[in-house]
């Protein structure tokens, strides 16, 4: 009897030690990739003519405009009183260049949401709000004349594009 008790106690100890709390494995931390963009509210500084032209050219051609050309385009803007009109004419000239890089209408219509997202990021360096996305998607879907070129034109001529 005494031996049975001792055996039971030993067995109990063994069982308890086998089923006791285990130590958690050490935690592993990872970083998710999140692209951060400023909001429109943070844009308070007006671009100079030179900055505007350099960025516009990069956005449209994915290449850099030479410093001499930037100087010459600035002269053109200075020589016209209505600066918005001057920018409009300069954009029209760039759009007439065969090297301008524009998505096709088919690409835009195949995935309007992606096109909208890309356009906002490219020109305004931010994501569209849901209202902006909806408005632009409706425009793309309902206006038969709306092309990527005209959308790029609007963005390049917008007031927000003049600020950083």
């Amino acid at each position: 009897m005494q031996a049975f008790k001792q055996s039971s106690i030993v067995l109990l100890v063994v069982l308890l030690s086998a089923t006791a709390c285990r130590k958690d494995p050490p935690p592993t931390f990872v970083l998710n990739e999140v692209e951060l963009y400023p909001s429109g509210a943070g844009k308070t500084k007006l671009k100079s003519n030179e900055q505007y032209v350099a960025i516009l050219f990069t956005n449209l051609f994915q290449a850099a405009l030479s410093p001499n050309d930037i100087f010459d385009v600035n002269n053109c803007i200075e020589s016209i009183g209505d600066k918005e009109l001057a920018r409009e004419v300069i954009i029209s000239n760039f759009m007439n260049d065969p090297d301008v890089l524009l998505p096709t209408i088919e690409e835009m219509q195949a995935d309007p949401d992606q096109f909208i997202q890309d356009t906002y990021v490219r020109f305004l360096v931010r994501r569209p709000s849901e209202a902006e996305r909806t408005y632009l998607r409706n425009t793309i879907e309902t206006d038969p004349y709306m092309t990527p070129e005209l959308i790029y034109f609007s963005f390049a001529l917008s007031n927000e594009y003049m600020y950083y």
Partner: protein
Amino acid sequence: MKRRDFLKKTSISTAGAFAAPYILPSGRLFAPTGSQLVQHVVLVMFAGGVRQQESVLQQYLDGSQENEPYPGNIMYNMLNGAPPEQKIVFGTGEGGINPIPSLLNSTLQSQGTLFPEVSAFSAGHYGGLNSILQGSTVTTQGLKQKPVNPTIFEFLRRHGGYSATDIWFVGNGIGNSTPLLNYSAHPDYGAQYGANFFAPLVTFGENGQEFLADAKVYHPENELSPMYKLKYFLDNTFEQYGSRLETLGNTEEEKQSIKLFMDEMFAKTLNNSIAHPAVSDNGDLRTVGYACELMNWFRPALTVVNLGAVDQCHSNFTGYLAALHRADHAVGHIWNYIQSQVPDMANNTAIICTPECGRNSDPNPILDTNEWRAYDHSDENALRIFSLMAGPTIPSNLMVGNEDNPVGRISDTMMTVADLLGVKPEVQAAGTVSPGTMSLLDQI
């Protein structure tokens, strides 16, 4: 409909019916209180300083160089008087020996009124231009700075109801303050009332040909309209954050007209068919050619043209004489072109010509190729200028004041334009002009 609603709507409709005829294109409610004397005004400014001795006093070399007793009038489109007979250096050809023939059958002086002795406020660059355009004496205003007080452009657009393409400033270049003079930084006025501006030798010159001339032509309704619509949506969204760009307020139609004008100017420049004067061998004369084209296209109420070649007098007296002779040729061409090529402006346009300042009585040490001394602008003689005007309602063949009895101040030019175009009471009420500033018409 309830009676109260009916009465409310009826009252609004009635008020609208009465008010509508008085709402001007600019959006202002009432027409200017002054009476408009002419339909169009052209103001020609000679920037950089013109000596009285070589202009209204007609002394030519006699008043400027030692041992050169050769007087004469080298501005015979504008002023009465015989040209010099000897030592001709201001014309065309090698050595400038061929004077440019007069373009007008009778001088502007005989067609209008000359104020031969007018007082300038500033002998420095742009101080005079600012006084002419603002009617004030802000002589401390720096270079590369917008006018502090409202300009005549803004007074006309805000109080006269003129549209953006009714008011033009044509500059001889884009250096220093010139492209900034089309509107002021005044909080009650500013860009929305500013003048349209071109510096044609840049806009339609090499830079413009490379970056502006090849503009794609978009369909106004099918392409431009949706493009603008989306732009306005983006702008409205951005305005929620508080930022708004200054604009001149050209309507979409006005912008389209300006773009078409630019297209035509690029084509005419390449064809060499711009309405340049018979002689167009300097920048001022070519600028004037584009100004004439602009007047023909837009028929502006006010066209201000700034010429600047005379300022080479700092180092080249011979060149200055040639530039002054050409400035006169430019004025003759403008007047001739308006009367003969722009029927809508003929016989209802007034022209005013004035330098922004004079030049010194004593020369500096710089000698030119003829060994003639050059003149800066910094002394009392540089505060002596003239003002010449002609056109309907302006008395002909009249001279007001003389060397011993100066009449008129440089700021009066602005009030005179305001008077001619019907906004004089509003300009006077604004309280921004120099005290004592009067229309020259009120000093006759």
